[in-house]
Each structure stands twice: as C-alpha cells, then as structure tokens.
C-alpha cells in the first residue's frame, strides 16, 4: 500500500524534474508540465529572436550607406517585413507567454495550468508558425513585402500570380499564431480565476499575475478582430473578393481599423507583463514592498480597458476625419494616467531602498528609464499635429524600438536572469551578466536614439536608400545594431554554461518573497506537495510576516 507512488496517482503527468540539463530530451516531447512548456516557449522564441536579429543586421548593413547596394530592394522589403513579423509573432509574444507559463501557476500556488494538454498544443503551434514564415523564402516571389501591417492594396499585389505566395503563407502563419494565442489566453484566464491556492485572493496575487491577466484579456477581445480582417484579406487574395480592393469599391481603410483594433492593444500584451516583471523585481532588489500595490494591480486592468479605444492614433494620416482625430488623441493621452501611476510606484519603490545592482536589477532599471523616454516620444506621436509630420518616418521606428527593445527586451532579460536560478537550480555568472547588460545598453542607445533626430529630419521608414544628409545618424545606428547582435553572445554563453555547470543556487538566492521561492529549484513536477495556504499580501519586505501558514508541508518531506 505504501509504495503507491505519486507518479502513478497523477498518471500521465509524471515527468522528471524540469530544469535539469541531464534531462534535456524531455524538452522535445509533448510534455504537459507548465514548467517544461514555459522553457520550450522561451528557448524556441529565443531562436527566432536570433533569426529576426539576423534580418535586422541585414537591414542595418544596407542602411550603413545611403545607396541601396547590399541587397535587392525587394529583398530589403522582405527583410523588414520578416524582421518585424518574426520579432513580434515569434519572439516577443511567445517568450512572454513562456515566462507566464512558467511563473503564473507557481505564483498563485497551482499544480499546473487549468488545461495542460491545451497548453502543450498551443506551444507546438509556435514552431509551425515559424516554419510557415520561413518557408516563404522558398516560394516564387519570396516572402511578403508589405510590412508587418500587411496593408492593402500593397498586400494584395501578388506579382507572381501564384496561389501559394509569401503573403498567403504570412497570413496563414499569423492565423495559426492567433489560434495558439487564443488557446493560451483561455488557459491563462481560467487558471488565474479558478486555480488559485487557498487564501490567494485577487489582492494577494503578485503584480505579474495581474499583468498577465490584463494582457490575456486583450488577446481575447483583440485577436478576433485581427482574425476577421485577415480572413477578408485572404479571401481578397485567393478567392477574388474585393473587401479591401479600392478599384472594385472595396475599403482598404476598414482593414486598418481591424488591424489596429488588435495591434494597438497588442503592444500592451507585450508591455503589461513587462510592467509586471518590473513590479516583481524592484521590491526584491530594493528590499521594500511594492509601493501602492493595489493601485498598481488595478491600473493594469485600466490599461486593458483604455487600450481598446485608442487604435485610430495609428491612422491620423489615413484620411481620418477631424472629430475622430480629436477623440482618439484624447483617449490616447489618457493612457498616460495608469501608466504614469506605475512609473511613480516603481520610482517610489526603489527610492531610498537598499539597492542591489545585480544584472536583473540593472536591466529593470534601464528598462524603466527607456520606457519613460519612449513614453515621451509616444505622447508626441499621440498628438495629431506632431504625428502628421513624423508619421512614417524613423521617429516612429525609434519610438517603438525604445518600447520593444528598450523596455520589452530589457524586461525579458531581467526576468530571465532573475528566475534563472529558479528554473535551473543554478546561478548564472554575474560578471558575464554585467558585460551583457552594458553591451545591450550601449547598443540600444546607439541604435535607436539616432533614429529620432533622423526621423525629425524627415527620413522615411521602409526604404533601402536615403538622402546622404542622413548618413551620419545611420552609421551610428548601424554600429549600435551590430553591437546588439554581438550582445547576444555573452548572454547565450552565460545561460548555456551556467545551466550545465553553474554554482548550485539553492531555493531562494535573492531572498525574495513569493510562493515560487518557497519550493525547491527547480520545482518538482507537481510544484507543491500540499497546496499552500496563503495568509499575507505579496511583497512583505521588511515586515517579517509569513506568506503561508503551511510552509513545512509545501515541499516533499523525507519519509
């Protein structure tokens, strides 16, 4: 009787400890363990980060001189299209889903996600999306050239006349990515609502969980709109309809509405979890509770709500009527309220704290600074008179790279370093981490800061050649770009070598407060031997109160 093992009781979910490299084979299986899936997401999307980065190198290589002399112009178009699409659909979204996958069940005291098999199925669509996108390099005419927006009528051109062309493959890939994201969103929302441990009330959830909830709600209401637009676009290309063909009475502007109704909120699908990461990291490295926790938590949901009513700020220059411009300018500005609340709370959290400047903290601090800068240029772009001038220039490219690189990638790096010891049981090399940070910071600044002046001077985006007067700033940006390419090397070296042979980290190397830090590193398959009974708000730094009432029972006790 006594030798019925836990494995037998929990049936097909039994797997060896996640995280240990000696068991790397299980990362290639249809595992249903949220921790394995989380790491699968993170590693897969990092590969695509490198691929998207390669495309960026080619773009920057082309732009280092004013003439179009490195690649053919059509290839250049394909490069920025694939760069943007890969970076968004195959790096930023999935890597954050991976982090959420790993962390949310641990943070709310659950044994797994609500639907483990759905989770695995959603993950395995990501490589399919990647293969479809990449396969477009091998069809006649090459990949889509219409940018990651795929605006008609450009996206309807199909110069080779083939049914299977780059644009169709792009649309299929985006559609599958959408299905995968919806499956993920249903899973996250259900998990957060239904799987919280006893005592884990909403206002005891870590801020990261709040942001994941807010972000996944966006997926649920936004993605279907994009899907609708994509279906109509696909029909226009393959079935001869004219939804968006102006020459047959179609309305290309309607596509822009569908697209941005999702794709503006989508930037918050990226930004919100990163806000959550900042909110997790600052208290740990400043040894202070998160300032205004409840307000910070709720502000995420406010952002979700507001994000749904600002999309037309991407269309100020699309013949949008004046009243609409005014209306959306107003809503856009109002987003700075909940966002400002968060920035204020982070500042107050680190203010006069005992700061420990380890790699995660460096990335998080720099990430917030970059975000403030992006926020300022964002407000400029949100105001109609400015945007009419800088629309479609490098000013826009600079602005959003300060978000997607300066904030989102920085936040992801911060999270990967911070939770690395939890995921692997080993510590990364701090020295290499610092090298990585400074290279990344320098590269980001050199690459993306010059885009602002050159954009204000009038350099348009999506061009392979430009006026020689812009050359100076572009040389700087290209150097920064190559530096960013370089910066991934110490990171990869660090992650691989410390996973294999880093120092054992123990359960809680940061002395952080949170359910995930109460169990072993890496956590066992079922996470908690007994479900935790939560008795306190998160971030009790300096308060000396226990987080759970059954600490001794959480981990497997001998005998």
């Amino acid at each position, binding site marked *: *009787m*006594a030798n*019925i093992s*836990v494995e037998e*009781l*929990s049936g097909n979910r039994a797997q060896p400890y996640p995280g240990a490299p000696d068991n790397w084979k299980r990362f290639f299986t249809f595992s249903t363990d949220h921790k394995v899936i989380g790491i699968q997401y993170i590693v897969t999307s990092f590969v695509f980060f490198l691929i998207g980065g390669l495309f960026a190198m080619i773009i920057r290589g082309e732009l280092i001189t004013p003439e179009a002399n490195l690649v053919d112009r059509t290839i250049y178009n394909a490069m920025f299209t694939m760069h943007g699409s890969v970076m968004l659909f195959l790096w930023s979204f999935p890597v954050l889903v991976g982090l959420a996958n790993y962390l949310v069940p641990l943070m709310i005291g659950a044994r797994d996600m*609500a*639907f483990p098999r759905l989770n695995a199925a959603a993950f395995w669509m990501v490589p399919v999306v990647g293969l479809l996108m990449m396969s477009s390099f091998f069809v006649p005419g090459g990949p889509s050239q219409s940018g990651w927006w795929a605006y008609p009528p450009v996206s309807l051109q199909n110069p080779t006349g083939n049914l299977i062309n780059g644009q169709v493959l792009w649309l299929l890939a985006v559609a599958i990515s959408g299905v995968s994201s*919806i499956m993920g*969103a*249903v*899973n996250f*929302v*259900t998990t957060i*609502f*239904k*799987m919280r441990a006893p005592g884990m009330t909403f206002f005891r959830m870590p801020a990261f969980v709040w942001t994941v909830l807010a972000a996944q709600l966006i997926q*649920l*209401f*936004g*993605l*279907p*709109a994009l*899907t*609708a*637009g994509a*279906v*109509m676009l696909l*029909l226009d290309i393959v*079935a*001869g*309809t*004219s*939804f968006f063909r102006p020459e*047959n*009475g*179609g*309305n290309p502007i*309607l596509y822009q509405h*569908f697209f941005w*109704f999702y794709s503006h909120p989508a930037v918050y699908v990226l930004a919100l979890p990163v806000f959550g990461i900042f909110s997790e990291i600052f208290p740990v490295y400043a040894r202070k509770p998160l300032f205004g926790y409840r307000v910070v938590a709720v502000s995420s949901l406010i952002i979700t709500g507001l994000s749904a009513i600002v999309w037309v700020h991407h269309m100020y220059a699309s013949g949008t009527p004046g009243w609409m411009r005014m209306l959306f300018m107003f809503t856009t500005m109002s987003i700075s309220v909940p966002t400002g609340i968060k920035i204020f709370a982070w500042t107050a959290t680190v203010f006069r704290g005992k700061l420990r400047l380890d790699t995660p903290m460096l990335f998080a601090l720099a990430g917030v600074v970059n975000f403030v800068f992006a926020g300022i240029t964002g407000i400029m772009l949100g105001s109609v008179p400015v945007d009419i001038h800088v629309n479609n220039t490098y000013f826009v490219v600079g602005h959003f790279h300060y978000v997607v690189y300066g904030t989102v990638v920085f936040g992801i790096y911060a999270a990967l370093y911070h939770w690395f010891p939890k995921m692997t049981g080993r510590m990364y090399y701090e020295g290499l981490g610092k090298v990585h940070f400074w290279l990344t910071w320098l590269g980001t600044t050199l690459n993306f800061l010059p885009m602002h002046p050159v954009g204000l001077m009038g350099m348009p985006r999506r061009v392979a050649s430009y006026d020689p007067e812009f050359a100076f700033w572009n040389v700087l940006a290209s150097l920064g770009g190559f530096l960013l390419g370089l910066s991934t090397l110490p990171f990869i070296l660090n992650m691989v070598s410390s996973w294999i042979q880093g120092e054992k980290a123990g359960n809680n190397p940061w002395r952080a407060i949170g359910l995930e830090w109460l169990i072993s590193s890496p956590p066992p398959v079922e996470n908690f031997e007994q479900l935790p009974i939560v008795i306190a708000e998160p971030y009790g730094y300096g308060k000396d109160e226990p987080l759970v009432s059954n600490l001794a029972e959480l981990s497997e006790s001998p005998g």
Partner: protein
Amino acid sequence: MTSEASIANQVESSIVEEHNEEANSKFGFWVFLLSESVIFLSFFAGYIVYKTSSTDWLPPGVEGLDTHDPAINTVVLISSSFVIYVAERFLHDKKLWGFRVFLLTTLLMGSYFLYGQAVEWQGLEFGLTSGLYGATFYLLTGFHGLHVLTGVLLQTIMFFRSFIPGNYDKSSFGIDATSLFWHFVDVIWIILYGLIYVWQ
C-alpha cells in the same frame, strides 16, 4: 503524516480536482465563446460600414433577398435551441432515451437549417465575387454556417457517446458545452438575420 493518510489525502485531492476540472472547462468554454463572438462582431461592423457607405450596394440585376424560406429556416434553428434544452433536462434526470430522442431532433433541425442554407445559395443570382454585397453575404452566412456545421458534428459525437455505458455519469461537460455552443450559434443568427434579411 502516515503514508496511508497521505495517500488517502492524495486520492481525495485528485477527486476534488476532477470536480474542479469540469468547472474549469465550463469557465474556459465561456471565455472562448465570448472571444469568438468578437469575430462575428467584427464582421457585423464591417457589414454595416460597407452597407452604409457603399455607392452601388446591390449588384446589377439583383433586387434583394427573398425572406420567406430563410424565415422558415430561422424558426427551425431557434426552436432547436429549446429542443436541446429539453434534451439537457432529460440527461439531468438520467433519462437517457429521452435525451437521445431530443438530441437527435436538435441534430436533424440543425441539418435542416444547413440544407435550407444550401438550397438558398443555389438559387441566388449573385456570387462571392459580386461586389461587396455578394462578398459580405457569403462571408457572414458561410462563417455562421461553419459554426452550425460544427454544432451538428458536436451533437453527433454527443449522441454516439451516450451509448458508452456511464459516459455522462461523471461529467456532463461535453453536452453542456455543445448546448451552450448551440445557443451561441442561434443568437448570432438572430443578429445576422436582422442585418441581412430584415434590414434591406
């Protein structure tokens, strides 16, 4: 804790989890349907924009849609929502034969709707590429029709599953979801009917 007690504990908690699983599945399905409804809302919004802003809405030679047969279809589809509800009640009372009869009736009514739709499509003098009018008409009815087809397939599966002994003893999530989906398909159709047939 003795090992016996801990095993008992685990067995118990796995039972609790099973109950939770059904509640989770239901919750998750609701979330999914709410999300799915946004696709329809988007199509509806597109339809309204096209219809109100298009200069030549009806293709040349097209007068509009006949509403007689679609009205019959509508009545059949909407009443089938009540029929599947009765089926659910029978299942709830563990009366399997009653359940089967009413589920089969729903299934046949759904199939009749699809048949009616196909007949209507056959008789129309415009196609998918006949301007925005044709494109939106086939897009909306086709996308909805796919959902009806899915519903009918789900009902077929649920029907055959009822012959597996004890299949619905533990959990009736399958039939709950099928029924919820069917109501959803119905509500969408009512809006769609209003937009396409009533508002001409």
